[in-house]
């Protein structure tokens, strides 16, 4: 070593010597390990290398299950067979692919494409076809010896109560796309949530795949399991949905196009949320060919659209509750105000029609709500004023997203004279007339209407609609939980709240009420009908009007809000109200049954 002169020099080289000794010791250890591997255990490893028949197989993790609020599964898993290639183990590719293509009736090009995407020495199975029929599985297993590197894996696959059940809430699961691969967090062939809660909670639901190492004999049959790493199942999700109510709502809407939102006005919990027509969740699970996908995307009925939060429609007469609230609270309208309705209202050179030819005769405010008299609201809407109407509409949460935990929510639109002025366009009195009956540029989503109705029912609380209660890991630990959250409060005097609720009760329970079709013995329901014209103020064909029914029950202690929207349904009272009735019947099954037996209150 270096010859030092001076104490520091010595200290330095001494310390370097210490390091040298440490490194030398490490090299000796390494030689020891090599001696162990190559000389002591060499024979064993030589033997293993001569028949290197260790195969590795992934074991897919079951995706987490989603439950309803009562612990019923909304979606579950079942074992399914997947045909996979392991590129490194494949021999004589062309022949094998050709034979498989014929045997399983899969286009040869599809097999070649799938293999072309991965390196030839990849060990990771390339998923070719999911959900093989038992017949196909048997065929592949029979010719296993001829097809090295071709395996049938058992993978858990989603299974749904019915093909379209809660489709827009749950969302579909589909193999990761090329685009998503670029994020770097998925592996080819991963099944990931693409919409709805499956997408939102994908990270929690996915779990972690395991794997096993097996030794196979010369014929490719497994001899022994050498090591197994258990997959870690995904976390379980408890939603706020009530499966029974969801099913009832979907049943009530079958064959129709539209949406139902059922909400708990005391917490903002979403008990049911439907959008129809819905898409078949299970069509994505296996192998969806491109044509089927294009058909779905281009379907003129837009089944992929979640109408409850992505569909924006004029609210029609449902909006009269906002005008009433604004007028009463601001003092521009009183319960004693009256109007004579002869079926039309003239303003300037134009005439605005009431929905009822011939009109409603003399009506007061309550009567105008109960019978949904347009002429009354034309007249008093001008008095309340568009600014106040817009302000109260916004206070009730219209024009802004509710923040529900589903992707793609739309905010709707609340027009106002100021907004119009900012864009340099005039506001006419005709705009006010349109707005007074919920027409014109005004747009709302069904979930906004549900939140608004809940606020009327509970005295002003705007809830953030809650869909997820908690996410629980398999070990029982809480991964995520959400408590109920307010995102606004409407301040009206108690008298105004009482008036709104009582007049809405009249809509259903008065003899002349437009919502009489929702009447249910044994349950006092309050609601407001709406018939939204797609082309404002035109005498459009009935088929083009949208039907609304926004309601809650029981009136004295509101427990549920039910909002029904039927696209192109016609009159709210005739179409939407009976659907709400069916849903209430399912929710308050016992109460209604008791009333029918004459023992209820």
């Amino acid at each position, binding site marked *: 070593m270096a010859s030092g002169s001076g104490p520091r020099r010595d200290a330095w*080289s001494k*310390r370097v010597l210490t390091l*040298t000794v440490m*490194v030398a010791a*490490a090299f000796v250890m390494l030689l020891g390990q090599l001696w162990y591997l190559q000389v002591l255990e060499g024979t064993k490893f030589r033997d293993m290398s*001569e028949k290197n028949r260790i195969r590795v197989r992934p074991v897919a993790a079951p995706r987490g299950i989603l439950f309803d609020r009562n612990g019923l599964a909304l979606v579950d898993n079942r074992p399914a067979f997947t045909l996979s290639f392991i590129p490194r183990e494949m021999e004589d590719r062309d022949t094998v692919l050709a034979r498989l293509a014929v045997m399983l009736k899969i286009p040869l090009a599809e097999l070649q494409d799938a293999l072309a995407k991965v390196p030839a020495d990849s*060990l990771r199975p390339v998923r070719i076809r999911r959900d093989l029929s038992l017949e196909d599985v048997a065929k592949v297993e029979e010719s296993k010896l001829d097809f090295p590197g071709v395996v049938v894996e058992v993978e858990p696959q989603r299974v749904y109560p019915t093909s379209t059940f809660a489709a827009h809430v749950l969302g579909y699961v589909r193999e990761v796309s090329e685009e998503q691969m670029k994020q770097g967090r998925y592996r080819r062939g991963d099944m990931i949530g693409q919409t709805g809660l499956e997408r939102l909670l994908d990270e929690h639901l996915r779990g972690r795949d395991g794997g096993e190492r097996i030794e196979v004999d010369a014929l490719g049959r497994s001899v022994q399991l050498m090591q197994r790493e258990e997959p870690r199942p995904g976390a379980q999700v408890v939603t706020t949905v009530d499966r029974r109510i969801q099913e009832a709502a979907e049943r009530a809407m079958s064959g129709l196009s539209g949406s139902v939102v059922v909400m708990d006005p005391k917490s903002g919990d979403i008990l049911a949320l439907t959008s129809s027509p819905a898409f078949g969740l299970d069509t994505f699970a296996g192998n969806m060919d491109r044509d089927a996908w294009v058909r779905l995307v281009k379907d003129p009925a837009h089944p992929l659209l979640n109408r409850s939060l992505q569909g924006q429609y004029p609210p029609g007469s449902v909006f009269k509750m906002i005008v009433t609230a604004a007028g009463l609270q601001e003092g521009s309208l009183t319960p004693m105000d009256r109007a004579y309705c002869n079926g039309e209202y003239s303003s300037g050179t134009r005439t605005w029609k009431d929905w009822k030819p011939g009109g409603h005769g003399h009506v007061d405010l309550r009567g105008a709500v109960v019978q949904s008299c347009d002429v009354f609201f034309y007249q008093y809407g001008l008095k309340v004023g568009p600014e106040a109407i817009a302000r109260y509409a916004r206070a009730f949460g219209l024009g802004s997203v509710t923040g529900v935990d589903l992707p793609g929510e739309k905010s709707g639109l609340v027009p106002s004279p100021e907004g119009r002025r900012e864009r340099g366009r005039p506001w006419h009195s005709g705009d006010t007339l349109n707005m007074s009956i919920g027409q014109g540029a005004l747009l709302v989503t069904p979930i906004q209407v549900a939140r608004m109705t809940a606020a009327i029912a509970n005295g002003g609380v705007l809830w953030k609609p809650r869909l997820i209660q908690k996410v629980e890991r398999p070990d029982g630990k809480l991964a995520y939980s959400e408590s109920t959250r307010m995102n606004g409060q409407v301040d009206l005097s108690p008298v105004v709240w009482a008036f709104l609720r009582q007049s809405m009760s009249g809509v259903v329970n008065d003899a002349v009420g437009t919502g009489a079709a929702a009447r249910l013995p044994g349950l006092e329901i309050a609601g407001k009908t709406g018939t939204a014209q797609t082309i404002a103020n035109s005498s459009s064909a009935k088929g083009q009007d949208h039907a609304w029914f926004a309601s809650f029950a029981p009136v004295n202690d509101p427990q549920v809000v039910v909002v029904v929207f039927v696209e192109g349904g016609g009159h709210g009272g005739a179409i939407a109200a009976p659907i709400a009735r069916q849903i209430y019947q399912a929710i308050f099954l016992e109460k209604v049954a008791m009333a029918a037996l004459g023992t209820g209150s």
Partner: protein
Amino acid sequence: MILRIDRRLLQNVDWPLLAAALALICLSFISLWSLSPSGGIAFRQLVWVGVGSVAMLMVVALDYRNLVRAAPAFYVFGLGLLLTVFVLGRTVSGARRWIHLGPFTVQPSELFKLIFVLTLAWALTSRWGRPLSRGALIGTTALVGVPFILVVRQPDLGTALVLLPVLASVLIGLGIRLKIFVGLIAAGLALMPVAWLALKEYQRERLLVYIDPFRDPLGTAYNVIQAKIAIGSGQLLGKGVSGATQSRLAFLPERHTDFIFAVFAEMWGFAGCLVLIMAYGLLVLRGFEIAAGAREPRGRIVALGITALFATQTLINLGMVTGLLPVVGIPLPFMSYGGSSMVVSLMALGLLLSVRMRQFQ
């Protein structure tokens, strides 16, 4: 750039050190050649040896003291490269450690290893009168911390793990007090949970796979078992080129890069490994001797840092291939196929030679 050829300099060339490196390059060539008899990758690697040799000569010609003086500039440049990778790595996922420069891909973290050593020498000699003053320690920690975090987040745990022993060796060489040393390690450990929380779930998963390869049974765990079979089956004398089924039949993954030692061990057995390890031993021993013999503080730190770099990379790579350590992506200096690694290794060799040659100036 002035290339002064001083006769005194040439007299002090460390031939055993050069011989050790040359031997390793030859062993690497044989291994690569036997993996692909057409010789494609072996010859491509020779091109990199050529490029690296020129770079090495340039490093030798430039006085290492000048390089240390310029270290802050290198440091900023290196940090810039790491940031580039970090930013590009986000958009072009998968290839996080590399930058594309025309037809080449460069791995900046490799180059940063050298810059790291130079920066250490610069920082720790700025107050040589009171070595390892508190200020010097804090400054050094800060200098080291930023790139370290960048490298970890790439994530390139391998490079990060190499930097720490290098730092530790230099600090031990400078006579850091045990109490402070232990304190630094404790502080580092204490910071780990914070870093952990900053990572996303899938990034954590990737790091966990480093530590526990069986979390990813199809990836690293498979590599380890196949590497062990390859090495063990070489037995005492090896199977020769044609008999090395593990390597030739492609059971062994990454066989020309990080796992090249397994190829070599299968072909040449324990006897061959002994020769290879002796070559690395010679390289490292000469390096330590140059460090011990250096009279001047910058030379000492550069020589010790570079030697520690070689030793750490070699030991971690061989440790992981033989199953003693978890699998982290670290190439074997002079052996693994790869341009960045080869050029940087030769430049590092140049630094060692340079310190030795100027020992008596």
